[in-house]
């Protein structure tokens, strides 16, 4: 890790640790905006990381940003940091103005938003489901189409119909109706298939990184609990059945860490689509193995809202299904592997960047 990244991770850890208390996360879940947390994150320039300074951002790389998001995932930060970063990255790529304020990016590979040319600009319409944090942000970046052309714009949530809704972790997930909202010409940009595909993969890599962070937390909380809790006169980590649970949990967490480390590494050289798929598949599996273990080990206390384990486990349950489940991505990836044929298998595994499994 570069020195700058280490410093970033260190200061982000400090902020998240201090601010993401149990009370704050619970309050956020009841709909209260985490004002103080957002402000410090924004003031620290973390909401525009990996946007070049010339474009008004903080600078740094995508890898820096993903390292930061792993920390946000670890501490269940109840703010749309991932969403704001994704939105800003897309805005910056297509040359639209970015913002340090809370933003979100609606699902990019939708077929539901349309752009129509009007006097001096464009009318944007559509009904989009499951837009993260739409009810609490200041701008929604949407990808839509004018005929066959991808179009990108930032629209104003105040002029949309937004339904209330949330995922299993109580994070806002809203259906929005955009009613022919006017966006001036200079607020609209064109997109390409390649760009949209790249952001779809960026989306799964971001989710994987958040999940890997949450898994780290689950392992820490579970390990600590096995030392604190005694039954039959000894700490429960002395029981072999519990040791097996801990070993499996450690293995899954370590695998999630490694696979996202390489995703982060890959994004730094901007050839990350295969790594992103692998990360989404492997981290999704890790989540589905780890969460039941953690809840088993913590017994009834872990099942309560008293204990903070649930902040991480409910996020893992929610996030594993967002941007496509691990099975949907395994199908895509498996198809590429099969199409590439048996001779390509091992060379691809040993050098995915050099011999891409697919030719997408």
């Amino acid at each position, binding site marked *: 890790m570069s020195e700058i990244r280490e410093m970033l991770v260190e200061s982000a850890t400090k902020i998240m640790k201090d601010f993401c208390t149990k009370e704050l996360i619970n309050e956020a879940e009841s709909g209260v905006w985490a004002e103080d947390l957002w402000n410090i994150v924004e003031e620290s320039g973390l909401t525009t990381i990996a946007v070049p300074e010339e474009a008004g951002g903080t600078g740094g790389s995508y890898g820096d940003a993903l390292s930061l998001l792993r920390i946000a995932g670890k501490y269940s930060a109840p703010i749309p940091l991932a969403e704001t970063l994704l939105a800003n990255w897309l805005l910056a790529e297509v040359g639209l103005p970015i913002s340090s304020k809370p933003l979100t990016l609606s699902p990019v590979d939708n077929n539901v938003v349309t752009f129509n040319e009007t006097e001096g600009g464009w009318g944007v319409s559509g009904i989009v489901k499951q837009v993260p944090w739409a009810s609490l942000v200041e701008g929604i970046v949407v990808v839509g189409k004018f005929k066959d052309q991808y179009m990108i714009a930032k629209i104003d949530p105040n002029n949309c119909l937004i339904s209330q809704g949330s995922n299993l972790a109580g994070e806002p997930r809203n259906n929005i109706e955009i009613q022919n909202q006017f966006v001036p010409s200079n607020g609209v940009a064109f997109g390409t298939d390649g760009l949209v595909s790249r952001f779809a993969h960026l989306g799964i890599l971001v989710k994987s990184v958040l999940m890997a962070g949450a898994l780290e937390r689950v392992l820490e909380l579970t390990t600590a609990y096995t030392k604190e809790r005694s039954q039959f006169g000894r700490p429960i*980590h002395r029981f072999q059945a*519990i040791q097996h649970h801990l070993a499996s949990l450690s293995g899954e*967490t370590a695998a999630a860490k490694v696979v996202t480390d390489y995703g982060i590494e890959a994004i730094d050289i901007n050839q990350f689509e295969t790594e992103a798929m692998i990360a989404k598949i492997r981290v999704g599996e890790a989540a589905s193995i780890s969460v039941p273990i953690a809840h088993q080990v913590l017994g009834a206390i872990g099942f309560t809202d008293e204990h903070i384990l649930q902040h991480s486990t409910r996020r893992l349950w929610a996030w594993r299904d967002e941007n496509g489940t691990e099975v949907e991505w395994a199908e895509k990836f*498996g198809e590429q592997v099969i199409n590439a044929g*048996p001779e390509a298998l091992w060379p691809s595994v040993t050098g995915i960047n050099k011999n891409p499994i697919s030719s997408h």
Partner: protein
Amino acid sequence: MSKALKLPIVELPENIDKLRDEVRSFIAEERSKGTFEPQCDSWLGGFSAEFSRKLGERGWIGMTWPKKYGGHERSSLERFVVTEELLAAGAPVAAHWIADRQSGTLLLRYGTEEQRNFYLPKIAKGESYFVIGLSEPNSGSDLASLSSMATKADGGWVLNGSKLWTSGAHHSHYMIALVRTAPLNPENRHQGLSQFVVDLAAPGVTVRPIRLMTGEHHFNEVIFEDVFIPDGSLVGKVGDGWKQGMAELAYERSGPERFLSTLPLLTELLNTIQLDPDRHTKIEVGKLVARLWTLRKMSLGVAGLLEKGVTPSLMAALVKDLGTQFEKQLAETARLLVSSNPSVTSSSAFERRLAEAILHSPGFTLRGGTTEILRGIIAKEVVAK
């Protein structure tokens, strides 16, 4: 996350690509000559003195050892690449595998100058094979309970007892045996153990075959009856056997052979399902390859730590646990994806590979420390950190 659970990102240096290509061309050439057919679990079952000698000639055994002992002074990452290529191809590497992986390395670390000069060049040529002398009839997981005993005599030691499950003893030259040199002290069972190089051709050594359930002969019982071992065969210090043996285990547990034993089956599976795979098949293949890819990166991370001189016992145990589960899971997935009649005599390569994978699968999670024992180690270290 606990530091002990972190692995470095290992970037293989550019020049390694060249080495990898050399290994691949060599394998392709041998395949086209019909020297071998890819085989699952080839590092246990694929014995070929001829093939080992060829690898020795190319400098692919004892790669990391000093040149003065016949080694090639290459990095452990280079060795990693050579071994993973050979395993992925299912090449017959069993003859020299243990000598290269752990016995030679152990002698280099703890052996005398005389021992290094005598054994290492022969190993590096692919002409001298070693076996692991740890398990005994009454000592499996509980290795410290072992009872084979060497008693001091004039100019050497006299060894009595037996070793069990000794892979390859019937065609190997030497064993590194962990035995008692002092009676068992129930207060500290790790005391009083020492390591010796035992010549398997010495008088008093009997190698008795024990057949696998397939009828194959890999295992043996090696019985010692008043075997005289000269003083010069002691490895390291008297009484340090336990510590030395544990260091040996880190090499034994962490390599690519802990997740690649069934890779030749995956290649055949892709061959078989290539036309018109259904959704379920694609999903299962996607998951398998995602796991494989992640495991390889983890194993590479362990190799990276070993290269830096760290002994990552926790991560080695963890990768072996995950890796050997994967080896088994691969066989099970292949079996459920393709209806077939697995048989080692089948005319279909897929059915042969599947048969090998299924029949060898019980061993994956036993050898080198059982899953249960590994998980105990992992949990204890994770709790301690």
